[in-house]
Structures are given as structure tokens and as C-alpha cells.
């Protein structure tokens, strides 16, 4: 799997560009984060990749094939868990693959057990806590057959403690399965802790102003969050981001 977003520009009204000649790529098994201030067009980038919007200029290439405006090529995890309230947790995590025309119940059950949701297989979403719902949503996107997972600020609606827990959980889960991930966030800590590579976006119009490779070895541990290297990188990213929200 290789995703390449090449010179993509997009505007809603034809005048002011939301995205300006954006270049982003994700390699096989790579965790790439788009870091940018709120309202910088990060979600628009996802809508373009998901095919519900079409770029004005540029190409979105998946394994060399142009997928401009084509739906169904990514596995998506939204900000809100977006679980269907009338389906049990098990039926919910199967939804993504069901939409693609396949269903692997055994795999789903195994992953739910791994995610600590084994007992909740037959429960309804309203019985779960916020963190559990997001875990279910993540399992749903892992079970979806598309090679590229797009996670759109999946933890931004959670409280601080749950968020840190969820990041650790996601990391351990991802390190085991190694899917290609395009992750969007506005949290520097989250970006550094999770990613292999980070793109920093400017505010309107969004363009890549910095690309950083995160050098920490995997599996990542919590202690790394307190290391000097971590702070150094964080400072660097903050310095890059600063002009985007002061102007």
C-alpha cells in the first residue's frame, strides 16, 4: 500500500483555497500524522481521500492508481465513535467490512477480546463508556478490508486521562497489526508519541510547512514521553506550529 497526495488544491467556493498544493505520502505499514491547528483543513484532506470531495487540482494516488473522487478505498475512523445504537457491539464492529461486502465474525470476536471488550460483544453502544466506544470504533476500522486507515482526531472528544490510555492502547494494538495509518490531530504530544512521521500544516490555506521523522524506536513506551529527545522534538514542532495560530 502506498498513498500519495500530490499537489492537491481544494476550495469550497472557488476563491479561497482550503488546501494549497498539498503533498503528503504514506508508505506501507507507516503511521503518518497530519498535525495542524483547528480549522486548517485537516478534515477536508480526509474527505478528499475518502472521495466525498474531489480536488480542484492535483492527484490522490493509491498504489499508483488515481482515486480522485472515488469512494470506498479507505477505512475511516471519525471523531465521534458513530456506532449504530440499534446494533450490538459485535454487529457494529462488523459494519465496515459488511459495507465492503465481507464479514468475518470470528476475527471480530477475537479482536474484541483483545481490546478488552469481549464481555460486551452483545451489549449496545449506550452501555459503553466513551473510551470503550472509541475502541470499538477502532476495531471496526481495523476489520474493514481497505489497506489504509484514516483516523480523524479520534481521541479529541475524550477526557485527558482516557485519552492517554487510549493512545497507549492504540499504539500497542497498531504495533501488532501494522496497518498504514493516516492520522489527524491537533495535539503535539499525541503526534510525537504515535507517529513514524509528522507533517505540520499551516492554517488557511493549508500547506505542508514541515515534515519530521520521529526517531524513537518501537515498541514505544510511556517513559519516552518524558525523555529529552521527546521534549526537543516537541519544541521543534511547537515552533513550527506557532505562527499558524498567532496570526
Amino acid at each position: 500500500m502506498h498513498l500519495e497526495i500530490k499537489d492537491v488544491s481544494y476550495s469550497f467556493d472557488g476563491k479561497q483555497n482550503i488546501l494549497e498544493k498539498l503533498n503528503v505520502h504514506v508508505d506501507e505499514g507507516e503511521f503518518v500524522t497530519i498535525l495542524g491547528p483547528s480549522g486548517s483543513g485537516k478534515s477536508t484532506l480526509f474527505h478528499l481521500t475518502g472521495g466525498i470531495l474531489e480536488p480542484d487540482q492535483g492527484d490522490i494516488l493509491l498504489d499508483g492508481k488515481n482515486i480522485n473522487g472515488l469512494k470506498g478505498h479507505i477505512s475511516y475512523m471519525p471523531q465521534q465513535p458513530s456506532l449504530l445504537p440499534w446494533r450490538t457491539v459485535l454487529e457494529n464492529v462488523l459494519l465496515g467490512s459488511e459495507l465492503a461486502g465481507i464479514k468475518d465474525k470470528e476475527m471480530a470476536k477475537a479482536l474484541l477480546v483483545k481490546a478488552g471488550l469481549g464481555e460486551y460483544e452483545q451489549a449496545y453502544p449506550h452501555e459503553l463508556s466513551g473510551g470503550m466506544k472509541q475502541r470499538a470504533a477502532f476495531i471496526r476500522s481495523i476489520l474493514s478490508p481497505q489497506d489504509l486507515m484514516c483516523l480523524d482526531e479520534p481521541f479529541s472528544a475524550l477526557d485527558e486521562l482516557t485519552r492517554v490510555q487510549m493512545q497507549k492502547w492504540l499504539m500497542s494494538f497498531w504495533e501488532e497489526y501494522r496497518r498504514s495509518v493516516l492520522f489527524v490531530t491537533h495535539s503535539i504530544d499525541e503526534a510525537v508519541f504515535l507517529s513514524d512521521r509528522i507533517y505540520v500544516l499551516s492554517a488557511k490555506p493549508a500547506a505542508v510547512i514541515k515534515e519530521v521523522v520521529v526517531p524513537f524506536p518501537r515498541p514505544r513506551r510511556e517513559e519516552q514521553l518524558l525523555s529529552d529527545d521527546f521534549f526537543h522534538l516537541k519544541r521543534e514542532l511547537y515552533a513550527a506550529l506557532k505562527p499558524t495560530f498567532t496570526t
Partner: protein
Amino acid sequence: MKRRMWKKGAPFFLLVLLLMAWESATAILKIEEWLLPAPSAIFIEGIKSVHSLWGHLLSTTELALSGFLIGSCIGLLIAAALHLFSGVKDAVYPLLILSQNIPVIVLAPLLVIWFGFGMLPKLIVISLVCFFPVAVASLDGLRQTPAELKHYFKMMGAGNGQLFWKLELPHSVPFIFSGLKISATYSVMGAVISEWLGAKSGIGVYMTLASSAFRTDRVFVAIFIIMGMSLLFFGVITLLERYLVSWKRKEDEKHASGN
């Protein structure tokens, strides 16, 4: 516990109280039986004519049920069609409302002229009153599908068919049931009215005969039977709803308890 018993029993107690007031009023004020019979007299008459009533009851039930089923299906189809072709909706929706403004009493004899005395005009009358609540409620349910769920479906590449069958339709099931409950009670009324047009048997027929013979007690028997049937229909739909949308009830309970 006591509160809960009171909540469940209150309507029943109130009904008993009303009947008692009625009973004593007829006795004290010496009201003529053909004007307003006492509840006890109505009850006795009801027991006496159980045998002859049974046939009427069956044919009305059959009529109401089939009209209800046809009307609800039409309502659902209309809602789905208007939802899927939103351009048509703006044109058709006002007509749907107008259809409810036609006085059934006036329309019914016309239908007999057009379609004769068979089942058809009767079913048309019942369907006409039954389709509307279902259509409006389902349309609301389809339209109010949460945007974030729709967004997820679209991002995952779901087609319009998948969007409808897997998201919008299941989401509107609780709404559809609200419509069905109203239609269920209307269907009995619709059946009785359509039987006035001319039928061999049915509660409507029994009622017309009773009222032209000044058998007020029998008219009241018929009224109570209609009420009972409506309640029964309503109850059956409520039970079905409990079974089919249990997720919704649990969710609501959770909200109510403040968690």
C-alpha cells in the same frame, strides 16, 4: 413502589370512578333508558348479545386489520419514495396533507358509487386514514438520521442502497412505530365508518341498526367495543415495539436515570 402502582392503576381507578358517577346519575336523575342507559344496563345488554356480536366483531376486526396493513404499507412506501427522491417530495407533500382534509363521511358514499358495495371502497377509506400518520412519522425518522453516522457511511464508500437499508431505515423504526400506533387506533374507526356505507355484518352495521331502533344501550355496547378494539390494537403494536426496538427503550431509561 406505591407511586408506581398508583401510576399504573390511576387511569383504571379514574375510569371506575367515572362509571360510578354515571351509574348513580342515571339512577338519581331518573334518566330514560333510551336517552342514556346506565353502565350496568349496557353491560348486561352486552353479555346478552355476545352471540350475535361475535360475527360483527370478527368482520370488523378483519376489515380494520387488512385496511391497517394496506394503509401502513402504503404509508411506508410513500415515505421511502419521498425520501429517496427529494425533488418529488416538495411537490407531493402538500397533496398528502390535503388528502387528510377530505371529509371521509362525504368521500365514502362516492367511493360506493365508483366501486360498489364490496371490500374495495371500505379498504380505500381505512387506508386513507391509516397511511398518513405512518408516512409522516417515517419521513421524519428517515430525515433525522444523525449526520455523523451518514458521514461515516459515505466515507466508507456506502452506496445509496446501503445507506437506506443499513442506516436510515433502522434509524426510523422507532418513528415508524409512533405512526403505526396512531394508525392502529384510527383503523378501527375507519372500519366502522366504512361499514356504515353498507355491509352485511360488522360493528358499524350493528351500530346503525341499534341507533335507528333507538336501542341506545346497544349503541353504547358498540362504542365500548370500538374502544376496546382500539386499545387492543394499540397494545399489540406497543408490545411489538418493545420487542423490536428494545435498544431504544434501554437507551431512554439510561437517559432518564441521569447516567
